């Protein structure tokens, strides 16, 4: 097992190298670099000034040279200064990822608590009214675009009823501290969390339902019934444990993703999470930040797949990692 993990991590290094090269190339070939973004609004910026700025930001170097530069400093642990924030890119990520995390975690927990039981119930009552209702609601959740659903929620609960703030993370000019601050943030997070949860319940619920149905038709479920076990035990012990195998591996793989931010939802609710500022950085051509951000996403993805493989071996006695 340990050997397996070490080998996987070793392979990951090469994957990250490849990913970074591709992304750097793509970012550099994108039209409109950072200098043109900031000089756009200044009509009397001379070509000399622009050239100087370009040199200052290191954008005058060729793609290969620039990549080698970036890589050599990245290997030393320096991901470069973010153009926009004027801070080391990794510090920006460190700050903002927790915002994304505290928004994603409650939604993640709610998702599990709602989607898995619903999936199981609708599988055990296949083709019943309950099943159709749950499936329909789940499909509505999957098909709703996040911006639309967010706008509906904003309209109803903040502009209409006034229960929750329209956007932002804290109430302006209140300067709460301690517990009051946390409560204030939680209050601001209610709507975004609702959006994230409702939109992702459907997928997980359908997944649980399909898996449960498959397991319920398995021969060993018939054996369990033939033993004389009650239907409750058959479903919640023999079937559920088997259903959990694919679910645990999928859900485990989702955990690192909690830090990656939700671009659209964060944008609509003006929440300064990673997704929101990532999009901003992309628009203005903040290459060091984008590099750090995408590398961060790549690492999270690799960790997610590794975690899900390890969990597979943990929950399923048939799987041994070598």
């Amino acid at each position, binding site marked *: 097992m340990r050997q397996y993990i070490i080998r996987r991590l070793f392979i990951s290094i090469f994957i990250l190298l490849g990913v970074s090269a591709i992304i750097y190339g793509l970012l550099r070939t994108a039209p409109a670099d950072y200098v043109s973004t900031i000089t756009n609004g200044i009509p009397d910026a001379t070509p000399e000034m622009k050239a100087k700025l370009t040199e200052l930001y290191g954008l005058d170097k060729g793609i290969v040279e620039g990549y080698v530069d970036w890589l050599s400093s990245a290997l030393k642990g320096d991901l470069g200064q973010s153009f926009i924030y004027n801070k080391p890119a990794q510090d920006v990520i460190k700050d903002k990822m927790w915002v994304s995390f505290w928004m994603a975690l409650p939604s993640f927990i709610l998702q599990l608590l709602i989607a898995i039981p619903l999936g199981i119930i609708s599988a055990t009552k296949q083709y019943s009214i309950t099943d159709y209702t749950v499936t329909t609601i789940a499909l509505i959740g999957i098909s709703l675009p996040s911006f639309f659903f967010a706008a509906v929620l904003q309209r109803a609960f903040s502009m209409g009823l006034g229960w929750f703030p329209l956007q932002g993370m804290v109430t302006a000019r209140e300067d709460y501290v301690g517990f009051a601050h946390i409560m204030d943030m939680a209050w601001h997070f209610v709507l975004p969390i609702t959006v994230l949860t409702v939109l992702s319940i459907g997928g997980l619920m359908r997944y649980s339902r399909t898996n449960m149905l498959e397991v319920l038709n398995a*021969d*060993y479920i018939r054996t369990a019934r*033939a033993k004389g076990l*009650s239907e409750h035990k058959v479903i919640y012990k023999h079937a559920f444990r*088997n259903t959990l195998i694919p679910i645990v591996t999928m859900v485990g793989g989702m955990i690192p993703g909690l830090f990656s931010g939700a671009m659209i939802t964060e944008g609509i609710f003006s929440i300064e999470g990673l997704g929101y500022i990532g999009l901003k950085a992309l628009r203005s051509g903040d290459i060091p930040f984008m590099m750090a951000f995408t590398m961060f996403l790549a690492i999270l993805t690799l960790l997610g797949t590794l975690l899900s493989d390890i969990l597979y071996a943990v929950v399923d*006695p048939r799987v041994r990692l070598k």
Partner: protein
Amino acid sequence: MSGMTAEMKKIKKAEQKEAKLRMKQISKENNKIIKKFEKEKKRKKVDPSEYQTTMENPDNIIEIDNLHTYFFTDMGTVKSVNGVSIEVPKGKTVALVGESGCGKSVTSLSVMKLVQGPTGQIVDGAIRYNRKGGAVDIVKTPISEMQHIRGNEIAMIFQEPMTSLNPIFTIGYQIDETIKLHRPDMKDEDIKKQTIEMLKLVGIARAEGIYDCYPHELSGGMRQRVMIAMSLSCDPQFIIADEPTTALDVTIQAQILDLLRDIKQKIDASILLITHDLGVVAEMADYVVVMYAGKIVEQGTAHEVFLNPKHPYTMGLIKSKPAVGKVVDRLYSIPGAVPNPVSMPNYCFFKDRCDKCLAKCNGDIPELRYISEDHKVACHLYDSKGGK
């Protein structure tokens, strides 16, 4: 030309529409029927008098009487078991033979009330089970009561040992679970002892080691032994073995059969053996029941049916069995195929494949009739002879 295709398209469309409508109607009617049966199965607190009954012959352990098990599919009703009557005397082995899809497995699952719901339902008939506390009719017994019978008094061995054990529990746990369920006052260590004893009984040498193994670590033959150990762990009076050797290779088959026979002697149980392997029947069975398309075509002692087969289908079956020491160009096979289960003909189901047809065969479906004291056959060929 184009006009014709348009016309044809129209007809086709109309046909499709009609088929769709018919299907909808069928599924609507099915739902109604299924709901009724499911409701009855799920009842709790049923007065025992409702399912108590008396055996016709107290020496029988099971009397299946005119059993009808149907599957209500969207394509129509499939009459998998269509009026089957089987008696299993105490301490005897009855073999149920027939080709795939003739209703053998459904008959056996009906006895356990394990027919895959909600489409599959026992619609008519009785399954009288000679229980120690008094005979019961399994068809009327609610599931909650069946759970005391399953695994405890009637046990079942399935045909797929590779997939019949739960992959995420150890062998020991799965057998323990059965014992614990039916013997709630037994101590944990006694249960474990009993489990290991059962594993030894079925010829597993390293029983203690196997106790902690997961199913995937065992071979098919071993798993079938485990399945047998599990089904015998509560000393059942009646064992249903649904093609216990089909998935195993020939050398293991013989071992498993020997094992079943030995154990049957030891615990004095009765066996309903389902198989399509006539070699197995010859070796094991006291009585043979031959099924074809949901009905019994021939029934009698193993000796009679084997040496003196009467029904053309049975003859065909015996002829199509490979025999050692006999030189044949090509193994015999019964021509044709089983009729469509949704729309069964109203004459003898075997007529279209039979090489001994009479004019009479176009008439009613032949009934199962005695042709001698211990031999029954359902064929018009024997209408004049004997009869009850």
